[in-house]
């Protein structure tokens, strides 16, 4: 706020300091001119020049002077009065730009490659990239591993004591938490997968064929756990 501008001074400026143009009307007090500039700048879609401000304000008003006070008033506020070329505008303070962002979170299904890679890490940890590739039969893209690392579902484990000392991957507590597992050892084995019908070539009645992405997949988990409560137990 412009602490140094008191109403008394404003009147002086408006009445005394302003050279009397041959006008029939007296110019409004400076405080009022400041209000006017403020409203015009606020509502205008484009920056407004001093000339245009003067045109729009009552006769005898001095926009340039009013702007000085207005600018001062907004110093340190959440909104600033800024000069844009020859014109003036009001803008939000640059340091508050982060408030103008809205973060939306979108949830997507993990890709098949990522799921397979993750599964191998979970079942075989600690496991090297070469081992993953051997099991998958295809090379593992950097992006897939990076994605899993970024999600904090996997992390680097100890280097293997084999030639080249390759890094290994292991799953993290975040992973266990997400899948509701106490430890990676709680992952069901192949025998259990088979018992649950997950290894059949033909899809069991009422389930979705393997590999078919579907929104219902989540429901299936519910169905499974309901129908076969012993599935995930040892």
């Amino acid at each position: 706020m412009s602490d140094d501008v008191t109403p008394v001074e404003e009147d002086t400026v408006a009445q005394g300091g302003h050279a009397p143009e041959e006008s029939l009307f007296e110019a409004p007090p400076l405080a009022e001119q400041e209000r006017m500039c403020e409203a015009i700048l606020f509502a205008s879609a484009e920056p407004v020049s001093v000339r245009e401000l003067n045109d729009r304000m009552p006769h005898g008003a001095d926009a340039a002077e009013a702007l000085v006070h207005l600018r001062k008033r907004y110093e340190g506020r959440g909104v600033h009065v800024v000069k844009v070329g020859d014109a003036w505008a009001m803008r939000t303070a640059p340091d508050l730009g982060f408030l103008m962002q809205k973060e939306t979170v979108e949830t997507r299904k993990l890709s098949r490659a990522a799921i397979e890679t993750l599964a191998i890490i979970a079942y075989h940890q600690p496991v090297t990239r070469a081992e993953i590739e051997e099991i998958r039969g295809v090379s593992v893209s950097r992006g897939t591993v990076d994605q899993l690392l970024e999600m904090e579902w996997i992390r680097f484990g100890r280097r293997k004591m084999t030639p080249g000392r390759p890094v290994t991957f292991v799953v993290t507590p975040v992973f266990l938490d997400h899948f509701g597992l106490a430890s990676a050892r709680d992952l069901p084995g192949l025998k259990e997968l088979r018992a649950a019908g997950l290894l059949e070539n033909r899809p069991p009645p009422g389930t979705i064929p393997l590999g078919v992405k579907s929104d219902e997949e989540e429901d299936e988990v519910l169905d499974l756990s309901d129908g076969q409560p012993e599935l995930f137990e040892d």
Partner: protein
Amino acid sequence: MADTDLFEDMEKMSVAERMAAEALIVDVDGFEGPLDLLLTLSRTQKVDLRKISILDLAQQYLNFVERAKRLRLELAADYLVMAAWLAFLKSRLLLPPDPTEEGPSGEELAAHLAFQLERLQAMRDAAAKLMAQNRLGRDFFARGVPEKMERVRRVTYTATLLDLMQGYARLRTRDEFRPFIMDRDSVFTMEEALERMRGLIGFAGTWTDILSYLPDGWENDPKKRRSATAATFAASLELAKEGKVFIRQSETFAPIEVRKRDGRDER
């Protein structure tokens, strides 16, 4: 919609003017229904709406409809319905009340009509006041260049346990079927170690390194050795807990030794 009697005016007009005025009168947009017409007619009484004479108003309305008929104007049905109702109201108001007749009295009906007129007038006044309010885009203004909220989209990925298992099953059954076993052949369980130690401990009267209890063939393969060592160590602790052996280690990383607890210890 003048304050004076509309038909008096109309009769003074030329035919062309009258036609124009008539068109206006029957236009429902010009007169918004019988209640609006009644309200307009009521203004001729030049009194507060609360003091209005409903009897006079009913008569005015009936005159209006009568003259409209004479001018062969086609009035909308609701104007005629109102006329019939006002004629009924008029008779109720004029005749002494018939005690055998059911339903509300003429006064009650008249009071309600007066209320309706007053309420309609009140809403008209309110509407005018509302429209005279300071209005956005006319008297006050919003920000001229609103800043768009930048949407920062963050994607999180998810998968279910089923996805994971199906993915794994898919891999393991793709080429050759190799049943998944948690590499049990390199795991020596604590139960196995315990069983083995129970059998052997009877011979250990002196301190013996627990590593000597490792099963044959488990010392060389590092995986097997690690598992067997851990299991044997755990089994030793278990036996110590049961009070069957003593266990000691002279310093960190020194060999761990066990000895059977026997008669001399009880002394």
